[in-house]
């Protein structure tokens, strides 16, 4: 009873949370749909490193961040970008995105180091009086930091450029610009805009980047977070030259900008000449920001190109048709299962249907809440998983009911049979659900494509099945066993002991209550040691000999009523159900349960 209340509270809490989220938050009462049901475009990209190096999960995470930034900035709402199976990136875009958006997704990202020439506030400036005046035409820039790179064209562009406009923060190949010329670039947060000199060090020349607490020269560890970069051979030489030159320049020209995907992720100033290729970037880093910078640098060290594995467009009408038909299939399946269990289990089928409805409610609520909090989306294979789970869930009830029936056949009363049957069925249900869940988990983690949605709902419904059987079906059975209808085994209750052929049971005080089949109780349950003793042929037990004698005596008058005696012949099981005895049996035990 208490568990039943717990279950009800659980379900109500789930839906209350959902409705509350709907009223006060952004939750929707229906689960969000995946692309194959809603329509849209799905790209599956596989990032490959140029030099055949292994692509790590960190790099993929960084690639996803970059793609997300590009898409978010381009104004496409609700794009979903996930990594799949550790080596692929799935980009799902709702609706029909144009070619530009698709190109944004497919492009690879580059990291470049450029010196800063001019730095200014992000907003466009009307007045052209910048900090630098464009040099006379024809002046050749002496080095990468030379203000001579800033031609009138660059300056005009710089003045008009608006770094607060999200479109300019999308990143992408067109923002990277000519590596041999000066470019205008924004800080990734849109806080500063820069004119940057030509590329001096490339991302590939970074050997490794890491973040950590700063270690002083004496080896003591301070509480300051820093990012460490290590360059490879070429990078070390190039970086030494850069730092040597920048060290003596005035601000802001003593800074070098790290440009990832056309956006400046960091522009530290140079404090010393780095000759060993091991630089340390310090500043107001937190642990996260230091780690992020290190991750971005590492990503830059391994330029990825995205290979399009599959590109799929699903029209919205086709998707909704699929969903409708899928739900129709589920409904038909549910009704068929309901009808079958009513036919098979009579009133017990009602318990099955109630449990299935409870499981359905729980599944719907959980999926809706997951789609709200975790961004889960229901796909067509997911729907298939739920429909398949109807059968698996109903099976738990069948296992349970069959066990109860078995116990009834053994002569137990209903309350006792429910208790006993539950004990045994529970083990079976748990192990079989465990196997199913294991399959779902393995499928989920190793899956690609739609397999994931299927595995997810299959695993979820397996857990729901377990919860419903434990918290709903069993308590309901306990309650039902107390009612007269079930407890006394009404014909239509599906638990009629007579129909089930309940057997003899020792009722105490030497009485044996004989039910469906008249068999002496001691035949089956004879003590093990008494039969087949080691010396010679097996001797019949006293009971068996008496039974044989009685049989021999009663055989000549063939009309002797079978089943009338307390102990009929051992090998002549009577067909007579002996209804009265069975009823009596139930009542006797019903009292003390």
């Amino acid at each position: 009873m208490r568990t039943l209340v717990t279950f009800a509270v659980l379900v109500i809490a789930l839906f209350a949370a959902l409705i509350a989220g709907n009223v006060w938050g952004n939750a929707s009462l229906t689960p969000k749909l995946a692309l194959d049901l809603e329509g849209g475009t799905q790209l599956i990209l596989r990032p490959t490193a140029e030099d055949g190096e292994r692509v790590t999960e960190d790099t993929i995470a960084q690639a996803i961040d970059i793609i997300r930034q590009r898409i978010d900035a381009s104004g496409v709402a609700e794009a979903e970008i996930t990594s799949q199976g550790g080596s692929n990136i799935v980009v799902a875009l709702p609706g029909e995105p144009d070619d530009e958006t698709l190109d944004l997704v497919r492009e690879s990202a580059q990291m470049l180091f450029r010196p800063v020439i001019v730095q200014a506030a992000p907003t466009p400036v009307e007045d052209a009086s910048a900090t630098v005046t464009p040099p006379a035409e024809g002046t050749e820039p002496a080095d990468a930091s030379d203000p001579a790179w800033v031609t009138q064209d660059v300056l005009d562009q710089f003045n008009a450029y608006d770094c607060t406009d999200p479109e300019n923060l999308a990143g992408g190949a067109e923002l990277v610009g000519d590596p041999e010329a000066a470019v205008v670039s924004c800080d990734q947060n849109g806080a500063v805009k820069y004119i940057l000199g030509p590329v001096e060090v490339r991302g590939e020349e970074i050997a490794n980047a890491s973040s950590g607490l700063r270690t002083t020269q004496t080896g003591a560890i301070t509480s300051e977070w820093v990012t460490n970069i290590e360059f490879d051979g070429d990078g070390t030489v190039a970086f030494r030259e850069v730092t040597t030159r920048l060290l003596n320049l005035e601000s802001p020209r003593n800074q070098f900008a790290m440009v990832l995907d056309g956006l400046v992720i960091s522009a530290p100033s140079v404090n010393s000449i780095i000759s060993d290729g091991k630089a340390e970037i310090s500043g107001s880093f937190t642990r996260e920001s230091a780690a992020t910078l290190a991750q971005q640098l590492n990503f830059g060290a391994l330029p990825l190109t995205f290979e399009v594995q599959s590109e799929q467009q699903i029209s919205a009408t086709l998707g909704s048709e699929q969903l409708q038909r899928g739900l129709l299939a589920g409904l038909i399946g549910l009704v068929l299962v309901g009808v079958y269990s009513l036919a098979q289990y009579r009133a017990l089928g009602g318990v099955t249907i109630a449990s299935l409805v409870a499981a359905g409610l729980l599944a719907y609520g959980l999926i809706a809440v997951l789609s709200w909090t975790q961004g889960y989306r229901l796909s067509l294979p997911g729907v298939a998983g739920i429909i398949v789970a109807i059968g698996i869930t109903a099976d738990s009830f069948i296992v349970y009911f069959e066990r109860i029936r078995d116990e009834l056949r053994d002569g137990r009363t209903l309350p006792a049979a429910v208790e006993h049957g539950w004990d045994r069925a529970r083990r079976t249900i748990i192990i079989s659900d465990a196997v199913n869940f294991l399959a779902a988990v393995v499928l989920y983690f190793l899956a690609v494509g739609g397999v994931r949605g299927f595995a997810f709902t299959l695993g979820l419904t397996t857990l729901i099945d377990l919860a419903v059987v434990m918290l709903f079906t069993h308590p309901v059975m306990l309650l039902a066993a107390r009612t007269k209808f079930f407890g006394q085994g009404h014909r239509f209750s599906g638990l009629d002991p007579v129909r089930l052929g309940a057997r003899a049971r020792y009722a105490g005080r030497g009485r044996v209550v004989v039910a469906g089949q008249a068999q002496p109780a001691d035949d089956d349950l004879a003590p093990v040691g008494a039969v087949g003793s080691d010396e010679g042929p097996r001797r019949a037990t006293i009971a068996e000999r008496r039974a044989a004698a009685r049989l021999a005596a009663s055989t000549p008058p063939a009309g002797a009523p079978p089943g009338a005696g307390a102990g009929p012949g051992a090998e002549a099981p009577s067909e007579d159900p002996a209804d009265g005895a069975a009823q009596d049996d139930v009542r006797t035990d019903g009292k003390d349960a």
Partner: protein
Amino acid sequence: MASRLSQWGNDLYTGKRSYDIVGNRRRWYAISLVILVLSAGFLATRQLNPSIDFRGGAEFTVTGVEDTAQQPAIDAVASVDAEEIPRVSVVGGSAMRVQTGDLDDTQVREVVQALAAAYDVPENEVSSSFVGPTWGKDVTGKALRGLVIFLLLVSVVMTLYFRAWRMAAAALVALAHDLVITVGLYAGIGWEVSPATVIGFLTILGYSLYDTVVVFDKVRENTDKVTEQKRFTYAEMANLAVNQTLVRSINTSIVALLPVGAILFIGAFLLGAGTLRDIALALFIGMAVGTFSSIFIATPFEVTLRQREPAIAAHTERVLAARAQAAQAGGDATATGAPPVVVGAVMPGAHLGTRAQPKRRKPNRPSGRQS
């Protein structure tokens, strides 16, 4: 019907009616061998028909079509690339799916235009997809890896749960049997093998084991103390278990097949080619075969394995010898000749604790139950 079935169930449970499934195991082995050979034949001759996800290529979907004739699509593709012979199928009520080999971007655009013209729909009703040639390999590789990891995990779990590696081995043999037959029959039907089909195959793993586990649970319960009694052999007790779970197995498979059948029906007749249809067919075959194997293959095979175990073999020999002796010596009416009627596991009872003892009612307590 129900009452007759439940009467049949009773008889099976009490052992009044019993099918000698374990005893006739050679027959079942032979039957499944025939089906296995048949499946292998299908696989060899008809082969699996890989979908575009495995072949790679371009796919066009035309929606809102009034006339679902295929020829316009074939002509439309031929007008762009004369050598390309597309696969055209109807999806749902008013959509066409056209699959071609690899096309470049301009060709794709031309095909979209041609298809829109051919079916007299606006161009935005034609959507195109592209699948790279390596994508399918990826899916297959992942599926195979999933299979191996799953099998390893499951063998460990089953061995731990049943505390007998032979049971785990028998379950895995039944599993392999199901998988081969399912894939073979699927190839025989000749539908496309899409990632959805692969999902179906992988789900069969879980389902087949699930079914087998329930039967084995009963086998284990019945044979728990089999060596402590001298009446029945291991095989007989196992056979009883199969009979006792027969009704449950039938009910389970019907209940599991009904929803899958519903998807299959809807998928095949209303939706046409697609995820639901492929998944449902794979599951339908797999579940049916899984039920067969859990009854007729798993337990008999487990018994075959088990009888190699010295303790069980010696026990079987002892029981049979004692039985033969009894039959020889006592031609009389004592019930020892044929395998007698059996109910449940033959094991002595145990003390249930003092709480199970009758209690005297306290005189000063009010009558009735207090709750």
